[in-house]
């Protein structure tokens, strides 16, 4: 089931009656989620990603715009008629019911022609439970389960009705780091097995990148970029996206372009053919975009070297850097000599992004 969002906009009226200040949570969101894909809505808090999810679920009504599931316009349908499964951030498992009762609950709500026999319900509940591997915990209460197990129950409850679209709100934020890794693989596996179109919301770029087919980066209600994780990482359309994706984060310098050469400080670090002269540009350099070379144009003062095994991370400073430190990831064999005070870098052109000094939009070269 593909999901189409058409000019989706959500405006929350101002709480304070005196100031008519409205909050535009989601602004003109236009997007088609392909059938059977896992889509990650990514952005810092307050960017409208959860609001978008809740509008898809039907728990919130869009101010304008339409939502389609396949060919059906579901904009005016209440949540229960949309055929969605929703997993809440804190799971919202009913604490007074056992796992089995929790999973059965959506099935027991079915009415009319959809009504199921008790045996069918139990069979289907066990199928959903098996899918998320909790079929041995069916008689426990939620408070007797670990966070990861509760998460699985929540997913099973969302899946048991065979929804057309599965929606996950920050599914991993309540789990510890190890469980998070494990669970995100799990979500990927479940999505692949069920082939249900899945939308999930996260503020963790690593999480979004690792499991999504498509990521949507949002900021203040406006979609910044949509694409496959690797594409978005390799070719950010603006400074915000570049800064938001990647660990360690991208290094940003202020620079200028003169005669198709990019200057950081006084050093011409890169040829940028076809770029107009500009007094101020932002230069983003991915940590892996540095090559140590004694003739390299970019000279930084070494602050420290973090050893990470295969690679080392050279932490240095440069006065044109907007980040407090410049972090580069270098092959351990090429690491700077011990005791060296400065280091010189060559830059890999495809790891360097130029952004306009005013609009912060990407300048391609």
């Amino acid at each position, binding site marked *: 089931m593909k999901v189409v969002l058409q000019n989706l906009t959500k405006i929350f009226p101002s709480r304070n009656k005196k100031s008519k200040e409205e909050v535009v949570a989601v602004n003109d969101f236009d997007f088609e989620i392909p059938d059977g894909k896992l889509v990650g809505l990514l952005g810092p808090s307050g960017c409208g990603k959860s609001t978008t999810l809740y509008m898809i679920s039907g*728990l919130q009504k869009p101010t304008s715009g339409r939502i389609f599931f396949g060919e059906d316009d579901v904009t005016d349908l209440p949540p*229960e008629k949309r055929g969605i499964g929703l997993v809440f951030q804190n799971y919202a498992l009913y*604490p007074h019911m056992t796992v089995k009762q929790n999973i059965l609950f959506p099935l027991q709500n079915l009415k009319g022609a959809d009504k199921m026999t008790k045996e069918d319900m139990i069979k289907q509940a066990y199928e959903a439970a098996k899918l998320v591997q909790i079929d041995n915990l069916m008689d426990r209460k939620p408070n007797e389960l670990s966070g990861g197990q509760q998460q699985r129950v929540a997913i099973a*409850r969302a899946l048991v009705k065979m929804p057309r679209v599965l929606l996950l709100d920050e599914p991993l934020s309540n789990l510890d780091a190890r469980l998070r890794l494990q669970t995100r693989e799990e979500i990927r596996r479940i999505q692949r097995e069920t082939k249900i179109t899945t939308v999930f919301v996260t503020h963790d770029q690593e999480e979004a990148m690792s499991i999504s087919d498509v990521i949507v980066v949002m900021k203040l209600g406006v979609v910044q970029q949509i694409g496959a994780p690797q594409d978005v990482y390799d070719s950010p359309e603006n400074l915000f996206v570049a800064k938001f994706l990647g660990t360690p984060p991208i290094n940003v310098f202020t620079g200028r372009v003169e005669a198709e050469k990019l200057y950081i400080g006084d050093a011409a670090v890169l040829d940028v053919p076809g770029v107009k002269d500009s007094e101020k540009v932002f230069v983003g350099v991915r940590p892996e975009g540095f090559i140590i070379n004694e003739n390299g144009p970019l000279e930084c003062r070494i602050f420290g070297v973090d050893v990470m095994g295969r690679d080392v991370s050279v932490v240095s400073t440069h006065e044109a850097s907007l980040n407090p430190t410049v972090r580069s990831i270098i092959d351990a064999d090429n690491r700077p000599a011990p005791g060296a005070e400065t280091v010189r870098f060559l830059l890999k052109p495809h790891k360097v992004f130029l952004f306009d000094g005013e609009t912060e939009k990407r300048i391609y070269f």
Partner: protein
Amino acid sequence: MNAVKDVKVKNKSKSPGGSKNPIVRSFDKWKAWIYLLPAIILLLIFTVWPIINTLRMSMLVNYNPMKAVGGATFKFGFENFTKVVSYPKFKQVLGTTMLLCVTTVPISTMLALIISVCLNAIKPFKRFLQTIFFLPYVTNSIAIGMVFAAMFNIVGSFLGSSNEAIQSAGIINNMLGFFTGNKDFYINWINAGSSYTSNIIVMIIYIVWNALPFKILILLGGLQSVNKQYYEAAKVDGTSRVRTFWRITVPMLSPMIAYVVITGFIGGFKEYSSIVGIFGDSMGPAGDAGRLNTMVGFIYDAIDSNAGRASAAALILFGIILIVTLINLWVSKKRVHY
């Protein structure tokens, strides 16, 4: 927090070596007790001793404090209990008390549940309405009783005679008359010649109304602490309103409901002032004093004439409340989800 820490730190610093001053050292040892002493003394005098004394008096046959002061002695035994139980009046007051309990507690709990769910659902005037629903709680129950009595009271002679002259039939009867268009439907609620049933109906209405605000307060507080996501989850799952109420709201509120029911029963068995509020000390309509007497009223009546039997009755009431509360707790163990 800080105070607690300070005390601990002080104790630590002094206890290993011990203070050189023995008075300070023994003060440390008894400090907690000394701080508690005022409260303990008051509790001993006004709570513990009366309980012990009640027990003692109930065991002394026909105990009367006046005679005791005069030097009389009383036989020890259980005669007070057997006498109290064999009174026909005792059975009557027990019946009335039980009747009021088993009717008002469920009715008021259900109503309070419905009202608090409604109050929780509306947005405009929420505070204002909550205040209104809470007003009876802060109003004196005797005053409310007098207003209720006026609402049900008939001034003037009532039907039956040819030269009837009703000056005021009370709001309730006027409303009945308005809707039926016939004065024959007037009901003698609380005046001379009224029936026991109509008396009890008035009492139930009054007690339920009086009990509502506290229950609403507790249940509304409970409702507001229920995570809204449960309702959103239920909505996504297509749960009907009725099913949401029974499968989610009621279980989520069950600790509060249990609390309200248990305290409701305890309060119900101690019902007294509400009846005084409407019928006055006579505990019944004119011409039939004592008809609506309750356990507490019975105890009060007996105190002057026979403190031993009053004590026995008080202990019986205590026993009944204890048993009912234990049953409540036993039921709630199965039904309440904490």
